[in-house]
């Protein structure tokens, strides 16, 4: 074996490797020249993952380079988001994030800890989808409308409970926005993820839940849960009889949205390539069918509009986090 190493072929191979490692620098103009990573900071099977997979599959064909979805989970998404925020800004590391991207830095501020990342470390490429959450109660409860629910909650402040995907998570935020707008106090029971939160209401351990329409619809159809209102600007197509909070006079809007981000210092031409690729992706029939199957509405916004949308959304969430403040632990009373 040793003799082989002296063979000139290996010298040739060595140069080849050197050349190969150089080429990305040389080929800066022809982005992308190798596989692009799409980091999903949540586990497989969640909203972010289910959105990222068809986006990646379609972008791959447009960019003629593999787009690999990598689930880098941990700390409610903070691990994956901080990974992308601190990665090399060359367009080969992208992030498929959810609304919670704006919540985590605020929660960090609240506890005066070193932030995992800051929002100015990332710039948006495009908004892909936005699903308004729906507020449901158990069907065996007497409340038929938001009005009845609010009245009941006013009579028994802090008694009616709701589950969420976790403290300062999207489902917690949505419900607190409503509670604040209605001037009621609810008992928050956090769970470790949206799945367990759904299980809790189905088992009758909590009274209410905010959830994405796709997940909740089968249980509404089966008569287990009753929808009271949605957080969207418009009614949800799958649940046309459910009013929006806006219609009912509450000025709140909340979406679990998914958008693509890159590190801030990414060169403008690279950003442009990615924006074009996403635009083509969302317009492709393949992508539309995939999103229909997971019952998630496409809500495409290109970078400039998405930036505006994001700023507004982040401001609203920051205010909500501040209002909730550090969670008062009830049992400690």
């Amino acid at each position: 074996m040793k003799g082989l190493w002296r063979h000139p072929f290996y010298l040739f191979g060595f140069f080849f490797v050197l050349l190969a490692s150089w080429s990305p620098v040389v080929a800066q103009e022809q982005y992308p020249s190798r596989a692009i990573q799409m980091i999903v900071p949540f586990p497989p099977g969640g909203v972010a993952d289910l959105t990222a997979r068809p986006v990646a599959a379609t972008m791959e064909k447009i960019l003629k380079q593999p787009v690999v979805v990598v689930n880098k989970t941990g700390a409610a998404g903070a691990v994956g988001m901080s990974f992308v925020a601190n990665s090399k800004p060359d367009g080969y590391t992208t992030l498929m994030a959810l609304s919670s991207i704006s919540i985590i830095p605020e929660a960090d501020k609240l506890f005066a800890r070193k932030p995992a990342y800051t929002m100015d470390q990332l710039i948006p490429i495009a908004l892909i989808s936005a699903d308004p959450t729906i507020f449901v109660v158990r069907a065996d409860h007497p409340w038929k409308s938001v009005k009845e629910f609010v009245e009941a909650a006013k009579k028994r402040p802090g008694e009616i409970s709701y589950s969420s995907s976790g403290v300062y998570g999207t489902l917690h935020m949505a419900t607190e926005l409503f509670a604040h707008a209605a001037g009621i106090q609810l008992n928050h029971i956090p769970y470790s993820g949206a799945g367990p939160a759904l299980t809790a209401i189905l088992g009758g351990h909590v009274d209410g839940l905010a959830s994405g329409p796709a997940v909740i619809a089968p249980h509404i159809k089966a008569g287990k849960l009753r929808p009271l209102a949605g957080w969207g600007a418009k009614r949800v197509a799958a649940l046309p009889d459910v009013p929006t909070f806006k219609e009912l006079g509450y000025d709140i809007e909340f979406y679990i949205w998914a958008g693509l981000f890159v590190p801030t210092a990414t060169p403008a031409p690279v950003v442009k390539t990615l924006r074009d690729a996403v635009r083509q992706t969302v317009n492709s029939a393949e992508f539309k069918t995939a999103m229909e199957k997971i019952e998630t509405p496409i809500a495409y916004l290109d970078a400039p509009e998405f930036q505006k949308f994001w700023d507004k959304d982040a401001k609203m969430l920051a205010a909500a986090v501040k209002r909730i403040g550090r969670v008062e632990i009830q049992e400690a009373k």
Partner: protein
Amino acid sequence: MAETLQNLALGFSVAFQPTVLLYAFVGCLIGTLVGVLPGVGPLAGISLLLPATFGLSATTAIVLLAGIYYGAMYGGSTTSILMRIPGEAASVVTCLDGYAMTRLGRAGPALGISAFGSYIAGTVSVVALMFFAPPLARFALRFGPPEYTALLVLGLLVLGYMGSGSMIKSLAMAVLGLFFGMIGIDPMSGFFRFSYGIVELGDGIGVVPVAVGLFGIAEILATAGQETPPQVQKPRLRDLLPSREEWRASFAPIGRGTVVGFLIGLIPGSAHIISTFVSYALERKLSKHPERFGQGAIEGVAGPESANNAAVCGAFVPMLALGVPSGPVPAVMMAAMMIHGVSPGPLLIQQQPELFWGFIASMYVGNVVLLILNLPLVGLFVNLLRVPYRILYPSILLFCVLGVYAVNSSVVDVWIMTFMGLLGYLLHKFDFETAPVVLGVVLAPMLEMSLRQSLAMSHGSYSIFVGRPIAATMLLVAFTLLVVGLKPLLPHGTDWRKRLGLADRSE
């Protein structure tokens, strides 16, 4: 009944379609391999393969993923038995007696009984799933935070029966495990505890790096530290199958493991790993010779290995009957269904009979496939022991690092594994059992979450644990166990520990 059989016939007509059959086989094979790889468990395996199912039909995708799930549960036992490296978290308990059996030259029977137990457990649980899924699922949903807390308290008491050495030492190890379990985000307030600015520690210490570190890495270090290298084993053909006594001894544990595993698996959110610990403790408690446990008792392999396969089936019950994501793996499988345009929910059985009954039938088929696949593999795997340690151990170390990294693509997990390996080595030197540490790490976050959720539900009143029948019953059982457990501490007790002590001294 007749209707069920008719439906089952429909299911088998789906399951015996060549493509479905092929994917059931592929699923079992991949699952076994995923299970064998240290660290990579069913969740990582299914997650990695989820994108590959996009091109399949809904039924084949689910059959494939389910095959990976129960295949991994079986495969995980292989490395536990042969090398004391848990292939996935639910095989930690199998390390104790499975590896001891390998040391006694009984690796073949341990693997064989594990395959057979998995088969029985899998098949019996599918029958239960088929006939009783809806009522069982409704019962499982009644497990809210208070019931869960009570169950976990029961689980904690199990710790007392884990170690084969000193009770004080095993309790100390359990407490150490509970301490490790406190690292991470406070589930009620969002505060980071003991994370020292490392974002990855926000989620706490994972079970996988701890288990692989404390068992696998520690074992490698301990072996490397021996003055004379361990004898390379040369298993003979006739030692591959369990003997008649071994069969007899395993029969009841397989039955009990199946029941325990299935029931614990039903409860949403509960981990298979708990079912294996409970089964182990149960077998040991019921055994006439508990001192044999940890020294190569086949009951200690047969029970837990059956339990973890039955738990897989149990976890499918709420998922299929009610559309409830009863754990991380069923959640991924539900996502797979959604990708194929099937919305999992309470109406799944009515709306998608081919999917439901095809799935049920494929599990019968899959369990047979698993048995056929694995019995010949026993011979192959046992022969791994012939590989000289200087080649075997570095390769295992490599696979441990790869496996642990692959779960979350996290280097921090690899560091945790390394640290746990060193810790495990030291504990080994000082004669501490490490299994209770793993159980502590598993139980601490779950217990904390459910206890605090319960108290949030009741506004701080502990009466919630007494007022709910299931929780109250379980706490009563726990209390009785505790009292029974204290009995040997009374003077004049002729406890087995004492007998063991006498035997030791007379040697």
